[in-house]
């Protein structure tokens, strides 16, 4: 190809990506930059500080360090991400993908059922689970556990964090399964054949062949699911509003409560900035581990 052709292509490529860049700059980069600036002020949504916000330097960040609610919120988020996205969704998703890898009569149906929670809008998902987890003897889950002789529980009050983890696992199995299925499909059948010829049993095959070859897929999945789980807001907010007593106050909810309940925009923004940095670091660790070349 001629040099002028290459140059023309390069210019065209820039032009093709330009609209996306403009939109992202206007609706994401600029507000995000503004949030960083806000985090250095005492801006509030109401009260005197709303009219005349003062520049306070790093005071908001200093306050973060001693704010127990912030650390609790961070811990809640950590357990939430660990158990729902990293452990629960991954294991159940991988399991479903492997179980559904072979053809059988009901496969399309089961496939569709597992994917369904993924497609449900957050508000509806919260509504359905509110009915599932309702306290009292008529709650659906209470009816189910009653078969096993368990007394009715106040699920969202007694085990709030566990419950929102279960709800989030429910929502994410489908996405994990899609990724894992595609990962599995890229492992060639010949490898399995060869292993079987050598007399390897199912668990050996899984440990020696399937798992190592799935590692890139798993890391890609972890990257996507970890960062998007950190930012979860609507599903949990609609169910618990972060309560009781802050036990399900994920970081996204904490930011919302700081900004719209306590009206502390500056402080809320500082939390957001810190979360952003955390996520960035986690993302980079995954990318390192994944060794993806883009």
């Amino acid at each position: 190809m001629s040099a002028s052709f290459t140059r023309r292509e390069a210019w065209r490529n820039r032009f093709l990506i330009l609209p996306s860049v403009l939109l992202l700059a206007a609706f994401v980069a600029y507000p995000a930059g503004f949030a960083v600036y806000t985090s250095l002020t005492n801006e509030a949504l109401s009260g005197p500080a709303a009219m005349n916000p003062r520049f306070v330097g790093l005071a908001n960040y200093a306050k973060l360090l001693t704010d127990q609610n912030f650390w609790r919120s961070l811990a809640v988020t950590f357990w939430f991400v660990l158990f729902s996205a990293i452990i629960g969704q991954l294991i159940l998703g991988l399991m479903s993908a492997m179980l559904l890898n072979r053809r059988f009569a009901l496969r399309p149906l089961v496939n569709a059922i597992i994917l369904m929670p993924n497609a449900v809008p957050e508000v509806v998902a919260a509504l359905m689970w509110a009915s599932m987890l309702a306290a009292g003897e008529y709650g659906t889950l209470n009816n189910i556990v009653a078969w096993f002789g368990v007394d009715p529980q106040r699920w969202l009050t007694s085990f709030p964090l566990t419950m929102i983890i279960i709800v989030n696992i429910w929502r994410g199995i489908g996405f994990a399964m899609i990724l894992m299925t595609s990962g599995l499909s890229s492992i060639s059948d010949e490898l399995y054949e060869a292993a079987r010829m050598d007399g390897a049993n199912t668990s050996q095959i899984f440990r020696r062949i399937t798992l190592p070859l799935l590692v890139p897929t798993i890391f890609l999945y972890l990257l996507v699911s970890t960062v998007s789980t950190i930012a979860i807001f609507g599903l949990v907010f609609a169910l618990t509003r972060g309560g009781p007593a802050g036990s399900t106050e994920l970081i996204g909810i904490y930011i919302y409560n700081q900004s719209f309940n306590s009206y502390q925009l500056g402080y809320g923004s500082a939390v957001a900035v810190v979360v952003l940095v955390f996520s960035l670091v986690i993302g980079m660790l995954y990318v390192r581990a994944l060794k993806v070349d883009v």
Partner: protein
Amino acid sequence: MAQRKQTKTTAASRFGLLLVISLYCVMPFVWLLVAAFDPGAGLFLKMPDQVDFSNFFRVFYEEDGFLWLMNSLIVCGGATLLVLVLSGFGGYALSRTQAWWKRPFLYSIILVRVIPPTALIVPLYKVMLTCNLAIAGVVRSVVPPEHFRQVMRIVGFIDGYLGLILLLATMHLPLALWIMKTFFDSVPREYEEAAIMDGATFGQRLRRVLVPLAMPGLAASGLFAFIAAWGDFLFPLTFISSPELKMLPLGIYSAFLRDSQIDYGLLAAIAVVYTAPAIIAFALARRFLVQTFGGGLKG
């Protein structure tokens, strides 16, 4: 013989496991479906005394269910179309270029998924307001005053279709760009080069080679964008006020506080209407998903 027996037990445990997972996934839907057809539904799951369509009837005749559905379809459909166009071209450019900004750009747009939307709302509102004022200025100078409001409902940024479409498209663009970029990475350059050798212009290459090849990737990224936009609640809540523009998530929301007591039957019926398009979209494009991700991972 022993082998046979083992496969039988493994098969049994396979189905057992699948059954448990499926039940877990399907259980919450049961109440929703039952309640939607039960005129006397409550928060708790119970056998309906009577099954009919009265809840849906109320959604479409007493409430503005049809309007909400159309608004949701217009906004989310518009956003999806925009995502398709932008991510198709953008993904192609990102795949073919080797420029220095490629990596930083790709990594930084992942961050869009990380920023809690709640942190952006207030500054975002200011941006949208500025755009809205600008558009209002243009519209006012072009359109006769009596049509001003109608036009603003379409091209406005606050309380208008255009702003919400652009906003939702932007929020769900990064994932689509990634999908399309990895997808184009796996499309062999030879096809394109052959076309270039034949003297095809970019437009011709696009029509004959790239678009047909990109269909599965576009289906996947469009699907994800649609489902994500469809499920979004915070942005419609913040940027839509007029009843004429009310969307399904807001319809559900107001049904929550309609009267002194929540009407769960009506709520469930709206929820079913709201959920159905997302599930249909998933069902239609599901087969493209595995293909796309499979391709992306190999490449």
